């Protein structure tokens, strides 16, 4: 009895804010309805429309491109930083780690304002790095080929702290005796890195990659903010398309269909992640 009192608030909130909206979303995806208000039942029409919709494919391609630009490169950068931070001790380590981790705790809108200033076409400090290659300053957020790589670099800068912490925890869990034994056998530093450190970090690497993958598939905030005030079609990502259909085109039914698609994609990848973690746990 007491158990039910303890779990009641949780069940109430989850039923109301998680299970109910999920069911409503699926049901809505079969209707032609505005954002607020009932609509007629249209069966699979929205789904057929989605599979013929070039903007939907564009959003899938852009999201995949963004995932490609962030997940593996970001994890590698985090690994490199973790290996560098690992060598340090005491307060030096705390300060250096704080410098790398601080961006992670900042709100995305703050990150956006900071980088919008840094990359400003006229006055941005970073134009100094761009001009030697292009010969002129570039309006990064209004130039399609620059847009996604730009957002990817900023995203890596912003979210990397998380992976760095996981790698540091993983490095701490490697028994010191392994290195001592290897040193006795005359192993070089490079051999210790490639034969001990990296293989033992593999499970953490897989964990970082899958967490990043699922996180970055849900990209919206950065892309929305940097494209604000310009044309969004060319750089549209999946969540942004849901947002546009629901809140700008007032197409609630179709937005729900797009949301179901995102839902399915993320759940499939999450199940894969769960299986990988479980395999790790059993070993």
């Amino acid at each position, binding site marked *: 009895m007491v158990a039910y009192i303890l*779990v009641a608030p949780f069940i109430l909130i989850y039923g109301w804010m998680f299970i109910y909206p999920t069911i*409503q979303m699926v049901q809505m995806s079969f209707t032609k309805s505005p954002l607020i208000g009932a609509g007629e039942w249209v069966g699979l029409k929205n789904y057929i429309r989605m599979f013929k919709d070039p903007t939907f494919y564009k959003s899938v391609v852009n999201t995949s491109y963004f995932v490609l630009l962030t997940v593996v490169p970001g994890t590698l950068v985090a690994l490199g930083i973790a290996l560098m931070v690992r060598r340090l001790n005491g307060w030096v380590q705390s300060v250096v780690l704080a410098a790398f981790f601080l961006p992670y705790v900042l709100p995305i809108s703050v990150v956006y304002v900071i980088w919008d200033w840094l990359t400003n076409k006229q006055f941005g400090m970073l134009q100094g790095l761009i001009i030697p290659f292009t010969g002129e300053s570039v309006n990064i957020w209004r130039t399609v080929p620059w847009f996604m790589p730009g957002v990817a670099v900023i995203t890596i800068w912003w979210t990397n702290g998380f992976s760095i912490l996981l790698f540091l925890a993983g490095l701490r869990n490697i028994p010191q005796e392994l290195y001592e034994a290897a040193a006795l056998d005359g192993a070089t530093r490079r051999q210790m890195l490639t034969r001990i450190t990296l293989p033992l970090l593999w499970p953490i690497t897989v*964990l970082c990659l899958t967490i990043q993958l699922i996180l970055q598939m849900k990209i919206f905030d950065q892309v929305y903010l940097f494209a604000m005030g310009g044309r969004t079609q060319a750089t549209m990502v999946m969540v942004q398309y849901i947002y546009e259909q629901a809140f700008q085109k007032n197409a609630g039914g179709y937005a729900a269909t797009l949301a179901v698609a995102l839902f399915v994609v993320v759940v499939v990848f999450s*199940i894969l992640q769960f299986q990988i973690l479980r395999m790790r746990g059993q070993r």
Partner: protein
Amino acid sequence: MSVTSTSRRRIETGAVLLTALTAICALLWFFPIYWAIITSLRFDQDTVTDFALFPKSPTLSAYIFTIENSNLLRWYFNSTVTSVTITIITVAMAACTGYAISQLSFPGRKLLWWTILASFMVPVSALIVNHFIIIAQIKLLNSYAGIILPMLLHPVTVIVYKQFFDGLPREFREAAVMDGATEFQLLFRIFLPMNWGVTTALAIITFIGAWNSFLWPFLAAQDETMMTVTVGITAVQDAYGVAYGRVLSGAVLAGLPVALAYLLFQRRVTQAITLSAGIKG
């Protein structure tokens, strides 16, 4: 002998170089934040002419302008109210649920646990449309309750609590039950006080997450007086024209509470992140 001493010297030079490289990388990584702070401390006319690494005469004029000419203080208040409420409710709810699932047996326990694990996989961003509809139907758009309700979904805190309670010895519970303690006393007097660290860590990370959230508050509060600070600073950006110092001063203030929370509780934040990723830190 001479061979080993040269190779040792080579290793030491390498180590020094590597440390220097690390320091340079850390400085470069921190530079965007530094540059934002420095620019916000310049006089307005200097932001686009003065590019010195230190401002010659630092001023708070941009901050004063932003505070006087925008709803920044109001947004700060909104962010504080919503983030603190979300933190308290989320952590209390997770502690109770985690405790019940870990320590008590009741019909539906397994089902509840699997639902929580399953909800961990669901992208909340797919639910925004329906969250908006639900909150609009009960007329809670542009209200604190409307901002807070959908942001109480934090299955991972329940998972961390359950695993934490699972790890505690069974004898505590049995002895306390013999002494006639109720479940509430057990949870709040014995189980939680045994390690406040976990609760502190989860509370800090929940607070940071709530303060930083963008998409939902952005949808739920269109009225400028109800915006959170993270949404507000992007909403008024155009109103300032090319006054970068002003925009940046708002951003520095918006990031300050979470940056401080991290710097003061660095160890707890690390603990919360490794716990929620399922690693023993």
